[in-house]
């Protein structure tokens, strides 16, 4: 840094610095904050905001993939979807799939976490195994379920037939109700570890002394859980629940591999129906289907953020 002194008539000699632009930028707190934010902002704008904005724009056109020219149709695509029976099934399925699976994942995850929080032989190994369904790529675990749910060669059906419990193969994916239930079961299997490991992390923070003191005071197991453990793990459980609902709402892989939205479009969720519509080149309609999901996810995301901030 070079220091220059200049002499002005009638003025004291004041040394001042000729700092380069970057140094001045770094020294100002407000500009430094923007500097740190810039990489993330650029990524957000390029990979999130622009595609999102483009998606909104395209959903208001009659664009078709591969065909030049498109017309602005305002909200016609959204309006048409309201009269589309497949879309109505899609909305219903997404809510069943998104909300119906969470209580099971929560209860099973909590139970699993409580068991694994105990110290027993190979407990660390079991904790590692707990994560397996979560870390195995969904496409691969879905293929395993596809074999289990095979209408003709399902080992589940064959074992039950062999034991004389049922007489015909179970129609896992061919019956609309069975298909939704089968999808939910696979989703629960995959989602339980997330709850389990999140709650387990919360349980590790529960001081042993509190539990011991409560036990000495004569509290039952249930009372200790409710008065000592639950207040500590409540926050992490609620956050895990909200995340799980958001992810399940936006799920695609598992359903696409298992049913592709069939039979007869009866198991579509927003993601798969949008993808199927895009495959038919109707990108405007496909964008509209996806964007119907946005208000629901936005509400959930706001709830999540408010809760996290409130917690802070």
């Amino acid at each position, binding site marked *: 840094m070079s220091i220059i002194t200049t002499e002005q008539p009638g003025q004291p000699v004041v040394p001042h610095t000729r700092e380069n632009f970057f140094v001045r930028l770094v020294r100002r707190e407000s500009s430094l904050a923007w500097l740190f934010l810039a990489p993330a902002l650029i990524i957000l704008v390029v990979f999130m905001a622009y595609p999102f904005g483009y998606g909104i724009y395209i959903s208001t056109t009659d664009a078709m993939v*591969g065909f030049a020219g498109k017309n602005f149709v305002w909200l016609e695509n959204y309006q048409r979807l309201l009269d589309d029976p497949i879309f109505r099934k899609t909305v219903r399925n997404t809510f069943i799939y998104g909300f119906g699976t969470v209580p099971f994942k929560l209860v099973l995850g909590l139970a699993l976490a409580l068991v694994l929080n105990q110290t027993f032989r190979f407990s660390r190994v079991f904790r590692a195994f707990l994560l397996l369904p979560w870390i195995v790529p969904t496409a691969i675990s879905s293929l395993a379920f596809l074999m289990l749910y095979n209408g*003709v060669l399902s080992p589940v059906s064959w074992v039950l037939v062999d034991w004389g419990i049922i007489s015909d193969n179970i129609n896992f994916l*061919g019956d609309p109700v069975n298909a939704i239930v089968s999808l939910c079961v696979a989703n629960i299997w995959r989602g339980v570890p997330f709850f389990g490991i999140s709650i387990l992390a919360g349980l590790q923070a529960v001081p042993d002394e509190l539990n011991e003191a409560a036990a000495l005071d004569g509290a039952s197991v249930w009372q200790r859980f409710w008065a000592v453990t639950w207040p500590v793990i409540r926050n992490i459980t609620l956050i895990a629940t909200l995340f799980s609902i958001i992810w399940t709402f936006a799920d695609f892989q598992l359903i696409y591999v298992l049913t592709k939205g069939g*039979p*007869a*479009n009866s198991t579509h969720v927003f993601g798969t129906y949008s993808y199927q519509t895009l495959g038919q080149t109707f990108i405007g309609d496909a964008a509209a289907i996806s964007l119907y999901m946005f208000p629901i996810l936005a509400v959930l995301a706001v709830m999540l953020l408010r809760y996290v901030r409130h917690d802070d």
Partner: protein
Amino acid sequence: MTKDRSAQLIAEANAMKYSRRTVMKRASALGLSAPALAGVLGATGHVSAAPNRAPAFLQGGSLNMLMSTAFVPAAQDLFQEQATAWGEENSVDVTVDFINWPDLQPRTTSAVQAGAGPDIVELWDTIPYLFSESLVDLTDLAATTEEVQGGYYDWVTNTASVDGQWKSIPHGNSASVVAYRASYFEEAGIQDAANNFPETWEELFAVGKILKEEVGKPLGQALGQSLGDPPGFAYPYMWAFGSMEVEEDGETLAFDTDSFREGLEMFIQGWTDAFDETGLGWDDSTNNSAYLSDQISATQNGTSIYIAATDEDGENYQPEIAEDTFHAPLPAGPSGRFATLGSRSIGVMSYSENQEEALAFLEWWFSAEPFQTWLETYQGYILPPGPTFTDLGVFTEDPKLAPYIEVPSIARNKGWAGPANLKAAQVSSQYVIVNTFANAVQSGDAGAAIDEAAAHLQRIYGR
């Protein structure tokens, strides 16, 4: 004109048993082009003279292909080998991705939207219409390959060409008939079942009831959202009961008819009585598994079940099942007997920066020798798009496969009685016809299923 001279030489060579050298001399005298000569050589049982080496400017390039998986695995392996060998010969880095049939179209759509992806794609029958503005015009190349094939059949031209232009080169398709176990049908009371398959759908459902209830081997039919077997059944059944998407003008809906309502009600009952009801969740491969694992007595399919059962080196080798398996055309309804058939094809994407390589590869692969080798490896599963190769042993030696050769005579294009155009392609890609049947058996209400499909058709044809 060239076609006439090629046909003349083929007839001459076959009658006089010309050697390969003589065929080439006569072709030169008749002024036949190299591709035409390749076609003649292929048709007369000689090795093609098609050049394997591409021009020098291709060398160092690359080529990525998106193809469908093959139900005859050896044919898929062979295509991979052919592509690799051509790439090595021409110093072109060739990769081939084989994906499940229903995934082809979404993947192609994504590539078109992104303007990047495979250079070459395989397309199902009417699908070239959906991507007509994103495919390179191959009309010139098609003229050459048509000569190799001895002209294209109507069922090929009607489905794979786009308003008279060729946006992709057709390579034929598998035909569908019913594969059935004669011994089970005899147990169900059909005499001489090998030569006596039920003539009408009504008769088939009646026998199927006995097969399901007494023999314990129901009929099998895939009704999932897939490109092969579900439409292979649904379209012909719809036509057999006097219904169609649109009339000949391609605009007037002709779907909701009394006879189809009756036919669909009969199907709902037949489904419960005679079919394996898990078929609603089946795709193109599940019925093959069900048949080869002795779970069902009959299913509508290409030759792949029979080929798998007779393949001594394959993991599904089942000589007893193969011996007991016979084939028959789909049964008839009040309006006649039908099948659906359209040619699959291979196109070059217009966004591709490797179009020269792609065209060179297709020109080579569709020449007589490599195409014939591929066709023979398919063992009769793929019907060729023209007459040149129909005399190959794979189509004539096993009388059990004869019904497949007869399919084109009763086949119609998707969209019939209208043309196989963009609308028909959209109906097909949204599985509207297939889902009419699936909806009907799910709800038990034929009228509601037809009403929902008719509204869907109106949205597409009226758009």
